[in-house]
């Protein structure tokens, strides 16, 4: 029996053309020459791609929240004029790992089709005028998985927030740990927790926005330690993968299991917030939690 908290989405390799925007990545692509149309994976309605994107990648019919990348999140949540922070350098393929492919080749492929060098990117900016550092995990980069680059970027983002005396906001998305980094990926759990403790010691707010999907070691570390826990509607959030659980219990999983609303009902998140309302929600929270106005 496999008991690790990881499911197959953690390493699902997406083979989208680099031109295809992150915002389309969770939607079934229709075989039309220009990919102008797509089918909502939730309600199966045909959507005009441009309309969908203009609607923050939320289906106008069923409110299904599509997966979006770091750039889209920065634009959505930060005021214009933010600065994308550089990603800390970490040892590349520290274990010399290879499965059916070399890990370094997988990394290279992921970088070729993504705007940033790994799965977590920070930006410094303001949210309705209040200074904040925003970290975004991008599921499109090797399933958002947490390896050393993600752990170091998280720590760097928090350290920057402490230096700027502002809050840290993280949008999580990950299938789990980066298995190709073995134990070093596991060690990111305590490492990132050192950072959240330091942010707390500095009296600065830590706000987590759980997006689809957030599972495994990411959930079992910084994604569950926010002062305020927000989840996007319908997001899959959990520790163990559903297939692993099903193999263990051998019965049908409850309806809505491990979805944002289920976590809310079980007391694990403060609120489930529609994407269009995230920025004002963040601003309200920071307004209360920041000790003094910082701009």
């Amino acid at each position: 029996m496999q008991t690790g908290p990881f499911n197959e989405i953690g390493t699902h390799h997406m083979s989208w053309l680099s031109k295809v925007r992150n915002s389309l990545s969770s939607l079934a692509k229709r075989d039309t020459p220009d990919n102008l149309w797509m089918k909502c994976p939730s309600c199966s309605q045909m959507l005009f791609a441009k309309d969908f994107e203009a609607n923050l990648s939320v289906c106008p019919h069923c409110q299904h929240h599509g997966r979006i990348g770091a750039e889209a999140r920065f634009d959505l949540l930060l005021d214009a004029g933010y600065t994308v922070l550089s990603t800390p350098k970490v040892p590349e393929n520290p274990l010399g790992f290879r499965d059916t492919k070399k890990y370094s080749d997988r990394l290279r492929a992921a970088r070729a089709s993504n705007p940033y060098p790994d799965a977590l990117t920070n930006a410094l900016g303001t949210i309705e005028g209040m200074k904040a550092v925003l970290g975004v995990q991008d599921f499109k980069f090797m399933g958002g998985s947490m390896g050393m680059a993600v752990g170091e970027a998280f720590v760097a983002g928090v350290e920057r927030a402490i230096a700027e005396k502002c809050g840290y906001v993280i949008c999580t998305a990950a299938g789990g740990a980066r298995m190709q980094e073995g134990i070093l990926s596991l060690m990111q759990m305590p490492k990132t927790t050192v950072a959240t403790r330091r942010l707390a010691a500095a009296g600065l707010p830590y706000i987590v926005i759980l997006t689809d999907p957030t599972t495994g070691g990411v959930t079992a570390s910084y994604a569950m330690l926010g002062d305020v826990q927000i989840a996007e509607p319908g997001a899959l959030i959990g520790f163990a993968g559903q297939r692993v659980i099903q193999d263990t219990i051998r019965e049908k999983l409850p309806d809505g299991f491990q979805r944002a609303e289920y976590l809310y009902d079980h007391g694990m998140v403060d609120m489930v917030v529609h994407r269009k309302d995230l920025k004002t929600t963040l601003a309200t929270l920071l307004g209360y939690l920041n000790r003094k106005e910082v701009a």
Partner: protein
Amino acid sequence: MTSFLDFEKPIAELEARIAELRATADGSDLDIGAEIAKLEKKSAAMLTGTYAKLSPWQKTQVARHPQRPHFVDYIRLAFNDFVPLGGDRLYGEDAAIIGGLAKLDGRKIMVIGHEKGQDTASRIKHNFGMAKPEGYRKAIRLMEMASKFGLPVVTLVDTAGAFPGVEAEERGQAEAIARSTEACLGLQVPMVAAIVGEGGSGGAVAIASANRVLMLEHSVYSVISPEGASSILWRTPDKAADAATAMKVTAQDLLDLAVIDGIVPEPVGGAHRDPAGTARALADALGRELAALDGKDTAEIVRQREERFLAIGAL
């Protein structure tokens, strides 16, 4: 009776031959006596040779050996005056994690660890060492109590992983693990962790984020089981041995990577062949680590623990 692992088959055959000869010998037959002595020497040499070069996958099997000493054995053999403390005060008592007050060579400590159980009934009782949120929340409660009363914390890690089940998710398995890791890092007292069998993923880290981390010689510590990595990365269940090698799960690998601070030697043939000897070595090693942390002030203990994890894997 020791149960033999697959890769110990030649040794098992020799041992069976020795037992057979013993049964037929009446004590006066010197030839048989000499033959037994010769075979015993050969068997001992084979055991030493085999265990000197165990592959990562073989070590995984030794770490999971059904007769490997567990928490309750170490409590009996390595600690004194154990006072078990139960419950998380929130939901229930989870026997997959046991904890309580104890003495280690006279030193008062809080000891916490996973227990897998040793027969069918106790394995079910302890849920095979796979803790639910209440287990981690009990660990948090005991760590905070240790912090309050100035008792160093010792943890013995031995789990395939935290329990993957509906009720565990419902009660916040991820949050419980995250808070337990946070509790380790916030301890105002020294903490030493020892991986004594399997260090399975987040379920292990939750009680292993210590000032010093030790591993028994044939224990393993990993982000996912080799079987899990095989099915996810190789998309076949047959590559567990390759996955164990590639992920670097052994004590020797992890010492090289500076993820752990020391290795506690096991008797030839593994801990299960001499639980008392293993317990003595473990107690000595834990005592040495705690002694090295004596006299340090609280801020220094907390900072050293933080820096330890910040430094892992740094360029």
